[in-house]
């Protein structure tokens, strides 16, 4: 790992970038640069090899068929798993979150193996699709303010013993298990169902990833005016009875 460059890898924008997931990449990149860091961003298409030397990997959401194709290619490539073994920070959303787990149900209705980087198992829910604004409390050990996001999925994700829930929903469905959990994480790998994109509404998550990647406890402050205004508006919108 180089001292001076933060290597940011965006995994498979051709398959997993359906819900404005580029926004997470842009926010991490912007906030790192605002701290004076050099950022080398690599967008890796699904016919290219995943570099194993990145510091932060972002995996987005996608439709059902691209999700299966992405899982097949990531398993075959092996690069993301090797990067995780090197201690890289990985943040995943929705379809990407399911892929990082042990298995999920693919577009053909069959169980598809994931990468097993996060101790979760996903299946397709039988109830209504979860769509709408979400408000949740992030695991206090992560020291982050409340989570605001937009969910749009039909997945149900159960967390195993070696992962922890990323957040507990106050409003919304989250993991869809009915137990109030939202997302999952371990030391270096994170998953969430939140769109929005989630970093635009929760820039503290972007900062957390940068801190973990750099192994520092704090970052210099940046201008938060518009993020704060958006957060306040969306939190109020989630709290307003429909």
């Amino acid at each position: 790992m180089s001292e001076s460059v933060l290597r940011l890898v965006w995994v498979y924008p051709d398959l997993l970038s359906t819900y404005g997931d580029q926004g997470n990449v842009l926010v991490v990149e912007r906030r790192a640069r605002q701290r004076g860091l050099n950022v080398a961003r690599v967008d890796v298409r699904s016919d290219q090899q995943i570099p194993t030397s990145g510091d932060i990997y972002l995996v987005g959401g996608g439709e059902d068929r691209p999700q299966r194709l992405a899982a097949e290619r990531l398993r075959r490539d092996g690069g993301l798993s090797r990067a995780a073994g090197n201690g890289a920070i990985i943040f995943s959303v929705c379809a990407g979150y399911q892929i990082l787990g042990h298995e999920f149900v693919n577009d053909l209705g069959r169980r598809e193996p994931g990468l097993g980087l996060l101790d979760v198992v996903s299946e397709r829910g039988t109830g209504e699709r979860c769509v709408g604004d979400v408000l949740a409390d992030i695991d206090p050990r992560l020291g982050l303010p409340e989570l605001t996001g937009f969910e749009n999925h039909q997945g149900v994700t159960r967390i195993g013993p070696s992962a922890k829930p990323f957040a507990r929903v106050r409003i919304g469905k989250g993991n869809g298990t009915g137990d109030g959990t939202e997302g999952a994480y371990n030391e270096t790998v994170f998953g969430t169902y939140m769109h929005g994109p989630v970093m635009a509404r929760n820039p503290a998550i972007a900062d957390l990833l940068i801190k973990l990647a750099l192994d520092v406890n704090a970052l210099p402050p940046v201008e938060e005016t518009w993020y704060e205004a958006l957060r306040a508006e969306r939190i109020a919108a989630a709290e307003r009875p429909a």
Partner: protein
Amino acid sequence: MQDASPQQGSSEPLTPRAKLAVTAGKVVAAVSRSAGRGSGSVIGGKVALRVDPDLLARLATHLDVVLVSATNGKTTTTRLIAEALRAHGPVVSNALGANMPAGITSALAGGSAAKYGVIEVDEKYLATVARDVRPKAIALLNLSRDQLDRAAETRMLAERWREGLSGTDAWVVANADDPLVAWAASSCPHVVWVAAGQSWKDDAWSCPSCGGVLQRPGDDWLCAECGFRRPPPTWALSGDYVLDPNGTAWPMSLQLPGRANKANAATSAAVAWVFGVPPETALERMKSVAAVAGRYDVVNYQGRDLRLLLAKNPAGWLETFSLIDPPPTPVLLSVNALGADGTDTSWLWDVDYPRLAGHPIFVIGQRKLDLAVRLDVAGLDFRVCEDVSEAVRLAPPGRMECIANYTAFQQLRRQVGG
């Protein structure tokens, strides 16, 4: 129903039940209008279809029907085709964009003297409507991500088109440059391929057929895995010209701005040709179209000219950015996330806002804060305003380009009188 062939036309009058349905629809529409609930066309169509579920099919028997579907450009293309076909006879059309079965039924019920029916159809209903009205031509322009919280997945729409249209008798006039459209249309027996271009490519990196990664050398595209590739076009958009199947280049001098409208006009010329209207005549008639349902309209508001531009999704915003006047022209952006817009604003991050660098930017709309964060992260200068009036007051002089998504556009029109 028997013998619904649109080519033959029919002198057979509507059945008593169909007549009753048309009358019931008109009565309800009139009541709805007088109650101030819009044009009443949708509610009127719903009632008529309830009285006679086959009404849409019956109304269409008397017409040569063209269906137009796409993610973007439906309303404009419907208008351009309607203008072109008027060279050969009266046209009935759902010109105001009521594009689901009820609205279409209502529009057709109002055009008993027409020869042609030019019908915009919502992407989700294309196969159903095509089955009912037995069209003579179907124009397929493009497919891309739109309203992700409620619309079907983009490839799923292409699949529904492909299945629903595979046995159609119609001439399908389809964009060869959009892999999803090409895949949808390639199961049809009669296709006229138009090289109409595709600026937004981010929904078509995967082969629609096998899922392989598409290669895109130049204007071409192909899948190295299964061999599916861009079909050879017989019509093409080339700069300001349309090339017809004989290789003749016809100049377009549209009033409508932008590359996307040239693509719409090229497709419309190909559709007109299916009906025997020569390109020269068709393009001449398309020149008369200046604004479509308020889109591209220039209105004067508080002493300033505002050009009203509708952009509903990333592909639409991309085309719109390419047609606005260069900096330092001020730009007003307005975004809502009401039901008709889709309530998920994450698509804002797929829009290439850095292209607006150098323009003074003003931001309004229900979701102006989402847009503010988007622009802030893009490193752009912008001002968030309460409404269009404040933006007009603060903006440097000159015509202002106003880009808004669906309900934001309607609100803007109401406010500035467009």
